[in-house]
């Protein structure tokens, strides 16, 4: 069964039809790319998938469960986590605390505010377990050395990784990456590609990403959907879609 199934999703802002009749189906463990020219509605789709915008019509199913119109908090609990086009970290928290914040709603680490203030045994036990889990995640991304740094003091590439680590801490079924390679040089992009592949294999994660860097898209995505003026232009295996004349005229260029 598909992890994510989107059926004729659409949204209007006043008279503007930003996304229309959008379909998407992602299998478990797939690396899926969403591409298209600026303003095609890619981030709008991400915002609908994560509950920031409420779709005007259509349905979103996550693992068969209807999550259309739920709030972003409910959707995160249901299992969708995301990163942002412009990095959004908790800049005054440490690297470790950023990931621990991501663990906030995980059942095994929950304790009440009063338990925290009184420092009951449960506090110490949960915090220790959180530290371990967070360090484990940081190690995967090679960030464990910087665990006590402020997030804002990390170099750009590592901030991207930390954002992915924080998203993974919420234990999602589906990970959405919004332009993960934006602002990266070719070396960093190469490293990022390895990281994304690694996340997929290590965590058996299903990943949907928006990207403009065609080298990255062609390098790691198995399937693509091309969006143009809010509508699906093409959809299918990466190599076929990139050869499609319609896609070449609308987006890639001759």
């Amino acid at each position, binding site marked *: 069964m598909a992890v994510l199934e989107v059926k004729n999703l659409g949204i209007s802002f006043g008279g503007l039809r930003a996304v229309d009749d959008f379909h998407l189906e992602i299998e478990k463990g797939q690396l899926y790319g969403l591409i298209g020219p600026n303003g095609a509605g890619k981030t709008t789709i991400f915002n609908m998938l994560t509950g920031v915008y409420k779709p005007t019509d259509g349905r979103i199913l996550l693992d068969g469960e209807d999550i259309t119109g739920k709030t972003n908090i409910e959707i995160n609990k249901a299992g969708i986590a995301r990163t942002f086009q412009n990095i959004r970290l908790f800049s*005054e928290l440490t690297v470790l605390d950023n990931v621990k*914040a991501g663990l906030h709603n995980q059942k095994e680490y929950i304790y009440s505010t009063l338990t925290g203030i009184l420092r009951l045994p449960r506090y110490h036990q949960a915090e220790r377990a959180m530290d371990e889990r967070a360090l484990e995640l940081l190690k995967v991304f090679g960030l464990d050395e910087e665990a006590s740094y402020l997030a804002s003091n990390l170099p750009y590439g590592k901030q991207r990784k930390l954002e992915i680590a924080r998203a993974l801490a919420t234990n999602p079924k589906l990970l959405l990456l919004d332009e993960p390679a934006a602002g990266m040089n070719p070396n960093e992009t190469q490293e990022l590609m390895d990281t994304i592949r690694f996340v997929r294999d290590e965590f058996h994660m299903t990943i949907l990403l928006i990207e403009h860097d065609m080298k990255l898209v062609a390098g790691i995505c198995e399937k693509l959907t091309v969006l143009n003026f809010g509508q699906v232009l093409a959809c299918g295996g990466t190599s076929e879609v990139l050869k499609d004349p319609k896609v070449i005229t609308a987006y890639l260029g001759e």
Partner: protein
Amino acid sequence: MKKLSKTTKSSLVTYGIVAAAYLFCEVLMRTGHMSSLLKGILVPVCIYAILAVSLNLTVGILGELSLGHAGFMCVGAFASAIFSKCMAEAIPVPLVRFILALLIGVACAGLCGVLIGIPVLRLRGDYLAIVTLAFGEIIKNLINAVYLGLDSNGFHISMKDALSLNMEEDGQIIIKGAQGITGTPSDSNFTIGVILVLLTLVIVIHLVHSRTGRAIMSIRDNRIAAESIGINITKYKMLAFSISASLAGAAGVLYAHNLATLTASSKNFGYNMSIMILVFVVLGGIGSIRGSMIAAVVLTLLPELLRFLNEYRMLIYAVVLIVTMILTWSPGAIELRERYSLAKLFHKKEKEVQ
């Protein structure tokens, strides 16, 4: 693990400073080296320290501006003073009476925090500052206009004057309009004040270093990202703000039980007071719990210690404020501090040993 021990160490230092200051003052008092003027200011110092730490929870940790902290203090003060005055004979033990009054004052101030928070904390921007500023003024003026009496038939309330309360002969006026509450039992003392300061510190520091504290600070740092990882923004903002309001209420309780006469003037509960608490927080460092406590103590003691300068006193006070601000925040001073910081000197020594 290393990080954990660092925060624990830092909080222990904070508690240690309070304990040391307390012992120092006690020794001075016992040996008779403290002027009566200074003795009179010990409890207010505790009150301001509590207020500064509690406001720092709103300003530094939650990242919202509150300009009505004196209002919450006012609510705590009057709620507890009414209780203590009514119960002055029913509960003869001062400590028990004070603890109950404290609980009542804290609860009432916290409730006001919730009531204000429900509509305002859903909004983004500086609305909280505006609303709390108004709240502080409204509470003050409201209490100035209220007459409250107690007789065998229960409470009587009037907005006009004492006569229109229509009380029985055994009636007792509790709040007498602008004259406030007189004859509150003075159940508080310096020791109780210091204990309350310590309690406030423990509550705020433990809160900050817990799951809840991380959620609150993540909202401060990036609201959208916090929502994306499933943190309930409104819930945690409300929580932080109402805890902050309750603690301000505790300061109010201490204030009410330190004075025989409690009035709501613009001097003690007006916006000037709220701004002064904000000055403590900013000067001590936004987000630094220990800093705001120290700033509150120093800036409260300073005008008293400068009394020998007579009319130049407030001038010097202002100069000290400006100089501290420059030394704390100017880039040059920060660089100097980093170069010659104690921690770094120690670190170098460690390295040399290795």
